[in-house]
């Protein structure tokens, strides 16, 4: 192979170094106006007065919208519970109440300062425990009226927006007969995606249709969600994607797009709406905070007999995609290690806080934190080495998850444990005062959702790839998909041009989520290539007077096997076909078939299986400063299974970047919620990892090609963030000899643990 497996440089590399790459926030249209939202300053309350007459009269203002100006409807990803504008009640700090559009950003801001808004504050549901307390106020007293999509129903009641339960036989019996029962409670804070480019939208309305310019991971979802929110047909909305300044899951659902669209229709001019950093942080669909209780029954010999897990997730003031995430524990708590029956109850609850949502490795970060911290506690209780205990209980090929899904290749786990051991022997790490070592594994899916690609061979011999998939920074489009397409036709990667997304042009793609783009779109390209290749060979066979089956594609040429002098360039083939039989093009689509599961394994809304699973082991070595509590990461090792690394340096970048986001989650990034309000309100207060904080991750790639994946590729980008908090927590506990069961494990937390308070 000439392209696949090479570290080909990114197609967007140069334009991103010259400032010429057009990001969403760089879009400037003729006559463009600027919008701003009036947002609730309090987490819960009743709107007593709202008077925007002074705002509307302010010089330069071109329009004002509130709930009374639009149809009274709610929308959402899976539950129709979110209004565009609060009308009678506000349910979280930052909830939009009104929108203003003006000639400049400054005018919009000055004008909004003249709004008369009076809110009578009400008791707020500030955290998870408040939400499920007896007699807790209801975040949505009208929760029963919220519609769900046809055919989707799940248990919900009051502040519990979704509940998933699995209660197999034999759990209580196993606990009754156990030699020991180990019990833990873990807590995880919210994590802000903290992409560098704030969320944005620029919308136009031409009298019939909307065009929305975005920097978004999932343009088709913007199209559908905007259409539903403002009550037009999806094809009345065209979404054009530009370079994305980071997303990490926060740019999968709609945000500002419906407001920009409404204001564009209202004002008759293009409208730009961009969050300032503080409103972005306060209203982002952060990774959900969670409380996880876990009990495991073990036998005298350390066998894992049964487990009982209770997970509470904070959905914030609306459901977003959280009801689906309540099924993720089903895929986590019976994975990795052989175990008897596992009872799992997961509830997502409404609170008067900003809605939470998707962040790289959804829920997996806190669920594996709980699972792998708990495994350390079990090993410690049994007085068995933590690594040894894991290794002696590892799942092997053909083991089953609580869902009934069979993990055909779970034996890769053992190989991953071997690989980190070769990087640095376990017994040599974490030695010496104030030092510790931790290990954690994970199994994770490659998102199966559908995608497509259309290929066209241009008459200059270059290949065009048309897809609605997005390049969110990972390199999946800028390298991976491009290299796969190049490999198919014997082209260098720089002869392949992939379009930016446009929902008017390309067929559906499910967006950059769940490490899916290279796997799914790469496979769609291979499907399309069958047809395109046949057209190339047919045309070339005529030109070369050879049989199509005797031809091969090498170095931008079509040539006859065994007689390299008989050849013709792809450009000539394309030009000839274009003139004589029509342009060469073809389309392919792909979605991963779901592995079979037992559909009665649980009640609730199920994301049914973890298709194309991958297996990973992380090791962290840390040193604690006992006077300040600061945790320094000395070494960080990763063994990651990737199927096939299409671009090894790009894969390395995903692992390094994912681990550092995981370190931020584990140690520094803090969103404390006090009575429904975040204590941290700026990037500075939030505490992102800096260059001076981060170790160079030592990496081993394991390659077990997936027969269904393009050249064997599986998902890569999500797993590196998932086991980090667990590995770090285990290392910190090893270093200080005290439990640290809440993340982030800040320096203050370490000091508190050390001082025994």
């Amino acid at each position, binding site marked *: 192979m000439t392209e696949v497996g090479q570290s080909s440089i990114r197609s967007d*590399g140069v334009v991103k170094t010259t400032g010429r790459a057009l990001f969403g926030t760089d879009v400037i249209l003729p006559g463009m106006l600027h919008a701003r939202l009036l947002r609730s300053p309090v987490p819960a309350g009743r709107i007593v007065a709202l008077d925007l007459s002074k705002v509307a009269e302010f010089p330069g203002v071109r329009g004002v919208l509130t709930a009374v100006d639009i149809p009274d409807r709610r929308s959402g990803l899976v539950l129709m519970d979110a209004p565009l504008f609060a009308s009678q009640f506000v349910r979280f700090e930052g909830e939009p109440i009104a929108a203003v559009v003006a000639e400049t950003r400054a005018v919009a801001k000055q004008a909004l300062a003249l709004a008369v808004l009076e809110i009578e504050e009400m008791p707020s549901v500030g955290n998870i425990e408040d939400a499920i307390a007896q007699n807790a106020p209801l975040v949505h007293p009208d929760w029963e009226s919220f519609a769900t999509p046809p055919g989707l129903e799940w248990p919900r009641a009051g502040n519990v927006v979704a509940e998933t339960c699995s209660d197999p036989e034999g759990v209580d019996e196993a606990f009754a007969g156990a030699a020991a029962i180990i019990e833990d409670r873990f807590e995880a804070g919210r994590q802000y995606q903290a992409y*560098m480019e704030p969320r944005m939208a620029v919308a136009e309305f031409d009298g019939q249709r909307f065009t929305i310019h975005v920097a978004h991971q999932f343009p088709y979802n913007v199209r559908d969600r905007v259409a539903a929110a403002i009550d037009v047909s999806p094809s009345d909305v065209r979404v054009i994607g530009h370079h994305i300044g980071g997303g*990490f899951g926060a740019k999968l659902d709609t945000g500002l797009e419906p407001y920009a669209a409404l204001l564009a229709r209202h004002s008759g001019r293009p409208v730009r709406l961009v969050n300032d950093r503080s409103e972005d942080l306060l209203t982002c669909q952060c990774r959900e905070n969670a409380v996880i209780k876990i009990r495991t029954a073990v036998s005298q010999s350390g066998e894992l007999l049964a487990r009982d897990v209770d997970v509470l997730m904070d959905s914030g003031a609306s459901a977003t995609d959280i009801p689906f995430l309540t099924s993720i524990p089903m895929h986590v708590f019976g994975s990795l290690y052989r175990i008897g029956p596992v009872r799992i109850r997961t509830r997502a609850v409404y609170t008067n806080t900003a809605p939470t949502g998707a962040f790289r490795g959804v829920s997996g970060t806190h669920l594996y934190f709980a699972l792998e911290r708990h495994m350390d506690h079990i090993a410690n209780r049994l007085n068995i080495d933590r690594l040894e205990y894991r290794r002696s209980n590892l799942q092997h090929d053909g083991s089953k998850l609580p869902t009934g899904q069979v993990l055909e290749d779970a034996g890769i786990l053992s190989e991953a444990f071997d690989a980190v051991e070769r990087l640095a022997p376990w017994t040599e790490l974490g030695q010496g005062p104030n030092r510790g070592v931790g290990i954690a594994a994970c199994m994770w899916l490659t998102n199966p959702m559908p995608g497509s690609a259309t290929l066209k061979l241009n008459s200059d011999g270059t290949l065009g790839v048309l897809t609605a998939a997005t390049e969110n920074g990972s390199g999946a489009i800028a390298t991976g998909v491009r290299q796969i397409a190049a490999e198919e036709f014997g082209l260098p990667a720089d002869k392949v041009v992939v379009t930016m997304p446009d929902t008017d042009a390309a067929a559906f793609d499910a967006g950059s989520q769940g490490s899916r783009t290279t796997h799914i779109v790469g496979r769609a390209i291979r499907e399309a290539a069958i047809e395109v290749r046949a057209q190339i060979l047919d045309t070339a066979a005529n030109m070369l007077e050879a049989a199509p089956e005797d031809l091969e594609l090498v170095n931008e040429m079509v040539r006859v096997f065994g007689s390299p002098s008989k050849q013709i360039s792809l450009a000539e083939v394309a030009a000839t076909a274009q003139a004589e039989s029509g342009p060469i093009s073809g389309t392919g689509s792909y979605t991963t078939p779901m592995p079979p599961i037992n559909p009665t394994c649980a009640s609730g809304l199920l994301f049914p299986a973890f298709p194309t699973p991958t297996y990973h082991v992380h090791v962290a070595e840390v040193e604690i400063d006992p006077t300040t509590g600061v945790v320094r990461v000395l070494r960080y090792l990763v063994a990651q299974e990737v199927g096939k690394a299409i671009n090894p340096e790009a894969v390395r970048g995903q692992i*390094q*970047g994912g681990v550092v986001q995981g370190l931020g989650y584990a140690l520094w990034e803090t969103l404390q919620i006090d009575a429904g309000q975040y204590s941290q309100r700026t990037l500075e207060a939030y505490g992102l990892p800096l*260059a001076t904080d981060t170790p160079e991750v030592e990496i081993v790639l394991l390659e077990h090609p997936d027969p269904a994946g393009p050249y064997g590729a599986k998902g890569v980008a999500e797993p590196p963030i998932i086991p980090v908090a667990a590995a770090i927590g285990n290392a910190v506990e090893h270093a200080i000899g005290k439990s640290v069961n809440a993340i982030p494990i800040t320096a203050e937390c370490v000091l508190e643990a050390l001082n025994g308070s």
Partner: protein
Amino acid sequence: MHTEFVLNTREIKVEAPSTETLLTTLRERLQLTGTKEACVEGECGACTVLVNGRPVDSCIYATAAVDGLAVTTVEGLGGLDGSITPLQQSFVDHFAIQCGFCTPGLLLTLSALLDANPNPDRKEIENAISGNLCRCTGYTQIVEAVEAVSQEERS
């Protein structure tokens, strides 16, 4: 308020309110959008430009303060013919770019570093960019891109 300065070798005159930031002047008045607006609190470094060769956060720097001075933005790093500097090329070659939103600011911070210290060690590079946040890369490949340039100059 009248301000004259040299922007990427071109002389510029602007009439802007005295409170206008350099970032607003660049992005909105001059429509030079290579300089990025990310936090507007002087925390992330995405808006870094050079004023007389020194990196500043243009989001908290008044345009009036550059009167008579020279401002370099990312658009001014390479040649007018589209050529790019060895540092820019090294960013491309070493996968120092993912989403690329922090890249312009990093390039300016690092250009100033390399002007002052052509052979920085790893620690010096990390310290130099500790005011530039990158959420994607975890920084290692950025540091390697700088090392490769300084090693090239050494050899």
